[in-house]
């Protein structure tokens, strides 16, 4: 057994036992000068993904990212590297990057019938949800800021008009003040109504929901009955029973076809309604 394989297997044992620091240092070739930067076999991609997994458990996001990137430069289609990278980027709030790598991992899982498909589908949904939540927060903050500024402008305009009123002309003063109050009220109400509208529309259309997991679909596949399911869910079912969930007729993974139009519709729905990723 080569030294690097030995170190890797020992690292795996430490990982299994929950000793992530120990696993990290075994995946790295412990060197007194560069304790973490040198890895036992710089050409072995599995060492990088294993170490990334240990570092993921330790919340060392930056080093997860560098390990995954190194791994991807050696082996661009490494599913685990994309998967761990997405998780680290998500923790660092790089939502676009995280989603991109989560989708890449998902594509590889689907193509290789990988058992991690369900977990990877979950990460894709989480990325979409958190990306939406982040955009939503920014949008709300901007809206509130615009609202406050507009009110401030109206107030300024009123004050300028009041300054120009002849001394003692109380009727004119009152008219200016009333008009300004009304305008400010209208402005506040319009913004408030927009906010309420946003809260109301929180309903997930039936067509977007997978009848097995009850989640919004990420990668819908269609069976010969014409019904679509989330790929991860139906694959999980077919592993136990190669039958159509509706008709119980024989059904195998090879019979499934991607439903591209529905996939796009679900994608567009989630882009606008990221909250639904956790409906």
């Amino acid at each position, binding site marked *: 057994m080569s030294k690097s394989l030995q170190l890797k297997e020992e690292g795996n044992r430490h990982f299994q036992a929950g000793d992530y620091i120990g696993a990290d240092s075994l995946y790295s070739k412990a060197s007194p000068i560069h304790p973490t930067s040198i890895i036992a076999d710089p050409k072995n991609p599995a060492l990088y993904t294993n170490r990334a997994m240990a570092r993921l458990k330790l919340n060392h996001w930056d080093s997860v990212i560098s390990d995954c990137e190194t791994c991807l430069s050696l082996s661009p289609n490494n599913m685990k590297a994309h998967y761990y990278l997405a998780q680290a980027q998500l923790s660092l709030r790089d939502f676009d990057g995280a989603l991109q790598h989560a989708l890449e991992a998902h594509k590889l899982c689907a193509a290789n019938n990988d*058992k*991690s498909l*369900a*977990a990877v589908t*979950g990460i894709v949904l989480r990325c979409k949800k958190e990306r939406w939540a982040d955009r939503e927060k920014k949008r709300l903050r901007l809206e509130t800021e615009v609202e406050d500024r507009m009110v401030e402008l109206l107030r300024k305009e009123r004050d300028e008009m009041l300054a120009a009123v002849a001394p003692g002309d109380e009727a004119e003063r009152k008219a200016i003040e009333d008009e300004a109050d009304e305008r400010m009220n209208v402005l506040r109400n319009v913004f408030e109504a927009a906010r309420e509208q946003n809260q109301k529309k929180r309903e997930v259309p039936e067509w977007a929901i997978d*009848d*097995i*997991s*009850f*989640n919004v679909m990420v990668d819908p596949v269609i069976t010969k009955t014409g019904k679509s399911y989330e790929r991860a*869910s139906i694959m*999980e*079912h077919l592993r*136990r*029973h190669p039958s159509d*969930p*509706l008709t*119980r007729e024989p059904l195998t993974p090879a019979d499934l076809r991607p439903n591209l139009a529905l996939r796009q519709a679900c994608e567009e729905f989630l882009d606008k309604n990221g909250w639904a990723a956790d*409906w």
Partner: protein
Amino acid sequence: MATGMRSKRVAKERQKIDKFGLPPGIELVEGNDLKEWLFDIRVLDSNPIYDGNIFRLKFVFSDTYPIEPPEVTFIERPSRPIPIHPHIYSNGIICLDLLGNQGWSPVQSAESVCMSIQSMLTSNTKNERPPGDEEFVRGNKQRPRDIEFLYHDNTV
């Protein structure tokens, strides 16, 4: 990797029930836990066998739900008897193909299972237990879904 689908799926079934309610005659008694629910069901049409009775169903969702079926049994409580039916043993075990590994489908839900059981009671005309009930209740150690039931009488 385990599916890990159960908690989210059960939570979503719960949300759906809270939002849309349940069909008449079916009521969720205890549904806060994501592993175990209790329902009360009663027969709506006048069936002299079950007249005025309410029955309690226990659902146990395993980690592999909904890929595998929930374990569903009637449980006995004061004023909640075990219904008399040729496919229901006196210990509450229900012989229904939908609840076995072969008959189950992941598109079924707790609600749809309740409805199937409700209609199984509604249409029953035989005021009797399954053949061999006493012996079965004494001897059975298996989990309901693993039992290979013989469907003695498919007319019920």
